[in-house]
């Protein structure tokens, strides 16, 4: 088990390495230039040249890449062009807020999607199934920022139940932190719930066709027992893995939600970083998002292994 986790994490190293190349190439391929972004279009050419030299942008690309990579390995992601602060320092400040939001969104999403998906899956073809499946289609087609704005208008501005935006660290004021968390997590959760509900429904429907299910019925087991001990138990391990794969949507959605609700997480750095061509920041963000995705998926696979005796964690 420990060995399995260690090996999975080791396998993540080449993945992260590939990601580092992508991140490095990506910022340089998109049009625009960090120095122009910093100094403006009509700036003194001498100043531009000095800054380029200072930032090491005149060196050959492989040299830039290698020196960046060398620093990253030691945990040094460089200095942000925009704020002149160490990127790692900024990220450490921001990561908890993003994780809190992502977790909140996931919890809301699962609370809505799992019961809905199970209900639809166990009553396939019924009116309830049609309603739920129809609702997921509408949900998939609804943009998150629009939904978030509506929720903000309704719950915060109209009804005044919740603060509309902002952030207070949990350590400072837990109650206020949670109150502020509700709207963004609701938005994020509602945005991913349709995916999760569809995954759940599909898992239940697919497992429902397994010989084990009809055999359990042939043993005279009550439907509730069949659902719990056979259908759910069989589909859960793979469902967990499928849900882990939606963490990509979750992280992408969090970028928009953070912007909308003024939530000081990593997502807000993305838009600013890209618009100002803050190379070290964008590269670091891509790596961190990638790492979160990988860790979540390794955890999901371990859970799958623990829940499904046929999977050997070696």
């Amino acid at each position, binding site marked *: 088990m420990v060995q399995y986790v260690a090996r999975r994490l080791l396998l993540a190293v080449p993945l992260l390495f590939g990601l580092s190349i992508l991140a490095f190439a990506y910022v340089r391929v998109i049009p625009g230039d960090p120095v122009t972004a910093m100094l403006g279009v009509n700036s003194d050419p001498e100043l531009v040249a000095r800054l380029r030299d200072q930032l090491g942008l005149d060196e050959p690309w492989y040299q830039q890449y290698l020196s960046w990579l060398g620093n990253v390995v030691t945990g040094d992601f460089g200095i942000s062009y925009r704020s002149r602060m160490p990127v790692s320092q900024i990220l450490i400040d921001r990561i908890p807020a993003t994780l809190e939001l992502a977790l909140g969104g996931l919890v809301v999403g699962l609370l809505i999607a799992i019961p809905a998906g199970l209900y639809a899956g166990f009553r396939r073809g019924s009116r309830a199934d049609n309603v739920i499946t129809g609702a997921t289609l509408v949900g998939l087609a609804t943009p998150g920022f629009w939904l978030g704005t509506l929720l903000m208008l309704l719950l915060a501005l109209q009804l005044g139940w919740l603060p509309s935006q902002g952030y207070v660290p949990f350590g400072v004021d837990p109650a206020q932190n949670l109150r502020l968390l509700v709207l963004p997590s609701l938005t994020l959760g509602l945005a991913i719930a349709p995916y999760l509900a569809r995954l759940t429904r599909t898992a239940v429907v697919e497992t429902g066709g*397994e*010989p*084990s299910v*009809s*055999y*359990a*019925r*042939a*043993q*005279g*087991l*009550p439907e509730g*027992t069949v659902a719990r*001990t*056979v259908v759910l*138990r*069989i589909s859960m*391990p793979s469902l967990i893995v499928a849900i882990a794969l939606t963490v990509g949507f979750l992280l992408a959605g969090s970028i928009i939600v953070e912007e909308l609700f003024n939530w000081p997480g990593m997502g807000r750095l993305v838009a600013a970083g890209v618009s100002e061509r803050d190379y070290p920041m964008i590269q670091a963000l891509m790596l961190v998002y990638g790492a979160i995705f990988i860790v979540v998926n390794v955890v999901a696979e371990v859970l799958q292994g623990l*829940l*499904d*005796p*046929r999977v050997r964690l070696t």
Partner: protein
Amino acid sequence: MTGDQPLLSVRDLAVEFGRGTRVSRPVDGVGFEVGEREIVGIVGESGCGKSLTLLALLGLLPSGGRVVNGSITFGGRDLRGADPSVLRSLRGRQVALIPSDAGAALNPVARVGKQLRLSLRTHHPDLTAQQRRGRALDALRRARLARPEQALAAYPHELSGGMQQRSAIALGLQNEPRLLLADEPTTALDVSIQAEILRLLVQLRDELGTAIVFVTHDISTVREICDRVVVMYAGQVVEQGGVEDVLTSPRHPYTAALLGSIPPLGGVPPEQLETVPGMPPDPAAWPGGCRFQARCRRFTELGEPDECTSTWPGSADGLALGAACHFPLEGVRR
């Protein structure tokens, strides 16, 4: 058959799938009886409706399937019109199913012991945990599992194919049902284990008095364990009777063709085994008259008589002994 009333009586059973113009009727007028302690074989090619007949008995037809005609009487009770809850209380308790592939049918994420206990808890809720364990162990021992304690703690995939099948048999027998429905219980196993499982079924019938319906496409296994045999073709019963009668002097050309496709017991094997030419007809468009006629050698030999294409030669409820054929074979001993 013993007693006045058979344990199970099926008459003129028909099962349909689909709606409107897309209706198909894969089981169409099947009838047979099973007495106490009797082993009845149902033989036929895949798709002849034998497994669907079993599922119809259990009230577990796949979605879209429904019984549209006929009657099913078990222990004096009508099962066709029975409430789903009545059927559920019978399933696993009085009528148990032995699946064709226990490896696929057993719950892959539950230990064998748990599956046995779950079924005991459903059908005997008043047993204590210790009694349940005892009964589960007994059942595994009866199914001749070499190390029952270990099997209790094992997940199905940790057992061999034969042990999986024995576990499923234990699961079927632990509630002491009156009838076992064995749906090709040996097809997933290799030949030596097949023979052991067949012997086990006969032993269990002798020890416990459980009647067995044994569904198979392999007519040679019927000879080994069955008292009576029902031969099915294209959703109908084409011949039934005692195993000796039917297998040694088959009267229906289809039965004869099936027997011709396997090597005879003893004697010199023929140069070439026969095959039944062609394919069974489509259940969505059964031909009129005798459904076997298109593949029947006798039909050609006799100069394609009209009766064969115009009228169904069988009985109305499918129960009649003998062959459903206008020109049955006579005195052909194999």
